[in-house]
């Protein structure tokens, strides 16, 4: 294990690491454009040059392996001078259109100019013009004049997503980034190239011009759209002029986690942020009055739900009540369901959701066929003793055919976020259907009441991903409208049912499961 010194700080690292990686561990930021920790080192932007003792020329930190006794300086006059010159080279033909550039505020070129350059230009020539607002594909737009040809995006497709989709064509100063001739840029992981683009060359057609990044607040969560559980950053406004009294979510971005998603996420998850503010979100508790579901307050809907559950239990006993839990709910909610419905109310008609669609898409990168985030968590908790579980199809059939008089459904059908047109597996029934969910669906027309639940980004919770990795997350932002965290709904329901429940048991701590990856 080589021990090296960078700017007077000593660190011992495993051999094979490059200087820039060792510096990152020390918290010393060496400016970079082409280097990205999730990609191979290109060594081409020449921004990360540092001084290394006993080597006369400056060396690129991203391609120089550490060796024992190495002494690195990142703050000398020569290094500063090199950085200034690279920035000058990059900026001579840059449009410097920060005021109208979507990347402004999270642009490395902008940051580094401010940090290291601040020179007066001596460029007297005419700037070269290149392609502006060039649509690369359905989600990505390119501004060639802003591109610094760092090749991060090219390497991303080659090394991460696995298909070469972009290349740098021509040579010298005429080199430009493009798709291959005639190709439209489409990939399940396209959005990542916007995240890793160090400048405003690649912007996201969805996010573009919607919000200045410095106006956004950040929260952390876990992506709920498949069994991978990518760690995410939620970018949102608490108030915007579009929805005056409400917050609005603008984007999801991947949050690095080497054990789960490294630096990436898929576009399904990325654009899944839209479900948070979607028109289909259920904002208020709904109760069927006559033919219509009508907004009523929480008190009324909870009282009514408790009443119906009591009535049914009184007339049919526990076998007349069914509980269907979709694997989109958190472990905490699952524990609350177990305590309330299974342990206290002795209900045994319990199911943990419909099976995974075998025809669903899956790849070797991130996307899992199972579009539910917590199937493994439900399995690990076990709502009913093993083997006593009721298959969801049977529960749905028992309900539709009248063998069950009351069905309480928790969570959203995971398939519906990706296939909104898919028919609901829950058909009409004679009895009472209570839905506790986030987003409207076709089964709502059969429901007596709909209880608006928070989405995962809006509540504390824990998911267990397909590998068994336990990931706790805190609420990134407040629930939309009157929606409540699922556990709180169950707690209120328990109180209305006059059942003694212990919310503290629902919380998963270190003592419950030692989290193998905290988020």
């Amino acid at each position, binding site marked *: 294990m080589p021990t090296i010194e960078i700017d007077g700080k000593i660190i011992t690292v495993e051999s094979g690491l490059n200087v820039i990686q060792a510096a990152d561990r020390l918290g010393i930021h060496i400016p970079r454009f082409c280097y990205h920790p999730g990609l191979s080192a290109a060594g081409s932007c020449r921004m990360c040059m540092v001084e290394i003792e006993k080597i006369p020329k400056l060396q690129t930190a991203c391609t120089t392996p550490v060796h024992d006794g190495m002494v690195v300086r990142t703050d000398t006059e020569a290094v500063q001078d090199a950085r200034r010159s690279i920035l000058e080279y990059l900026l001579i033909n840059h449009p410097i259109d920060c005021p109208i550039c979507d990347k402004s505020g999270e642009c490395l070129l902008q940051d580094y100019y401010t940090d290291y350059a601040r020179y007066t230009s001596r460029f007297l020539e005419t700037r070269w013009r290149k392609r502006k607002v060039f649509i690369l594909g359905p989600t990505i737009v390119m501004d060639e004049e802003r591109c610094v040809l760092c090749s991060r995006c090219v390497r991303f497709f080659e090394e991460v997503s696995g298909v070469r989709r972009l290349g740098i064509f021509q040579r010298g*100063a005429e080199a430009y980034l493009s798709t291959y001739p005639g190709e439209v840029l489409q990939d399940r992981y396209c959005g990542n190239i916007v995240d890793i683009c160090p400048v405003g060359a690649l912007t996201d057609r969805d996010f573009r011009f919607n919000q200045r990044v410095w106006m956004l607040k950040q929260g952390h969560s876990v992506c709920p759209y498949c069994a991978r559980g990518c760690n995410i950053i939620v970018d949102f406004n608490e108030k915007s002029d579009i929805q005056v009294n409400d917050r609005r979510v603008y984007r999801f971005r991947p949050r690095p986690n080497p054990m789960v998603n490294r630096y990436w996420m898929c576009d399904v998850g990325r654009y899944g942020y839209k479900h948070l503010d979607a028109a289909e979100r259920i904002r208020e508790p709904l109760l069927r009055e006559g033919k219509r579901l009508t907004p009523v307050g929480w008190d009324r809907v909870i009282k009514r739900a408790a009443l119906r559950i009591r009535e049914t239990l009184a007339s049919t006993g526990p076998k007349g009540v069914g509980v269907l839990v979709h694997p989109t709910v958190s472990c905490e909610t699952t524990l609350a369901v177990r305590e309330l419905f299974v342990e206290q109310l002795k209900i045994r008609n319990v199911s943990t959701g419909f099976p995974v669609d075998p025809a669903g898409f899956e790849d070797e990168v991130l996307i899992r066929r199972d579009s539910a985030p917590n199937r493994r968590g439900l399995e690990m908790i076990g709502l009913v003793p093993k083997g006593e579980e009721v298959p969801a199809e049977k529960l749905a059939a028992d309900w539709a055919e009248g063998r069950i008089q009351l069905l309480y459904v928790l969570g959203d059908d995971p398939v519906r976020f990706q296939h909104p047109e898919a028919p609901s597996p829950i058909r009409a029934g004679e009895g009472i259907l209570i839905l506790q969910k986030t987003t409207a669906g076709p089964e709502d027309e059969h429901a007596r009441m709909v209880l608006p639940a928070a989405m995962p980004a809006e509540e504390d919770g824990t998911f267990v991903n397909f590998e068994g990795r336990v990931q706790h997350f805190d609420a990134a932002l407040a629930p939309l409208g009157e929606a409540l965290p699922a556990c709180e709904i169950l707690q209120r329901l328990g109180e209305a049912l006059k059942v003694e429940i212990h919310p503290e048991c629902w919380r998963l701590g270190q003592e419950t499961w030692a989290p193998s990856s905290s988020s």
Partner: protein
Amino acid sequence: MEKVVLTRNFGKPDSHTLAVYEAGGGYQSLRKVLASWTPQQVVEEVKASNLRGRGGAGFPTGIKWGFVPKDSPKPKYLCVNADEGEPGTFKDRHIMEQDPHMMLEGTILSAYAIGSQTAYIYIRGEFVLAGARTEAAIAEAYAKGYLGENILDSGYSLDIHVHYGAGSYICGEETALIESIEGKKGWPRVKPPFPAVEGLFGCPTVVNNVETLANVPLILEKGGAWFAGLGTEKSGGTKLFTISGHVNRPGLYELPMGIPLLEMIEKHAGGVTGGRKIKGVIPGGASCPVLAAHELDIKMDFDTLMAAGSMLGSGGVIVLAEGTSMLATLLNLERFFAHESCGQCTPCREGTRWIVQILERIERGEGTAGDPDTLIDIAEHMAGRTVCPLGEAAAGPVKSFVSKFRDEFLPSPGSETGPAGAARHARAGGQEG
């Protein structure tokens, strides 16, 4: 010509054929070596010869071969760099056109020395005749048993493939050449790892210039000491010089390493056209810093020129007579480098074009007093900071031309060919970067 070694067959009828090459003693070294020498003996003999790479960098060939790991389980490759693209240089082309077997025999011997069983000859695409003659020579060598399985019953086998370049200068840089053979865009690789460890297809690889390899048969025939004795103390053999520019007899000359530059120009190239004085000489191809008139009393070898701040390079001597515009000359050179920059790394991609833009502005008569310093500063920030030597190659001429002929890059009138009465550029104040 003195001490004719490499050009011994040049000019003979059908000099490119196997029959003529064999009649002059060709392939005797191969027979001798494969019969009784170990690869290590070949390496040692070449080390003793002081043969240095003729592609431009002048690295000792035997030492380069010694970097190939002997214990690697991977196949080893020899690449012959026949992508001769340095402006002012046209020696390898003549070897391939007039005596391709000399290169082939050298290639086989060198491949044997490094333990390679596959060699690639990367030929500049424009060299149609050279390519055809090389391919014909390879066919003859296969037919005669000098190539292929079990060469001359020695148990050693070698295949040679010819790969043509597509017109890019940068593919003469060894790692760009490797990328190109692999079917990729000719972008130089970041080093380390060096090709000797991780080269073609990720395997240990040696890239040698045509002229370098062409010397090997005679070294092994007559001995390393003999070859070393032909040259200077640290650089053995003769050198193929290609003299162009304002001389009466431009062309290819085989001369001893270390020959005085002026002797070469006056005695061999017939002096400067029109009896003019020499204004400057580019001693080793376009990328070598120019020597001014007062620097011409110099010996033409790697170390002397290096000490003088220039390079022997590939031996392309470009003579510039009095009356030549150094601005126009430098602009010509820098347009070449800007056009041939691969565009991968920032300083070279942006710097070469910026230099051209400034030189063009000076040529239009819109130069400013600050331009010479700006040019030198841009060049200094390119040199040594790029992925490959092209940045250095483009920077060298800028620094030397502008510092040695500064007047010609200034707007003031009165210089020999500078932009007289140049309109001062109005925008001297500058913009925010």
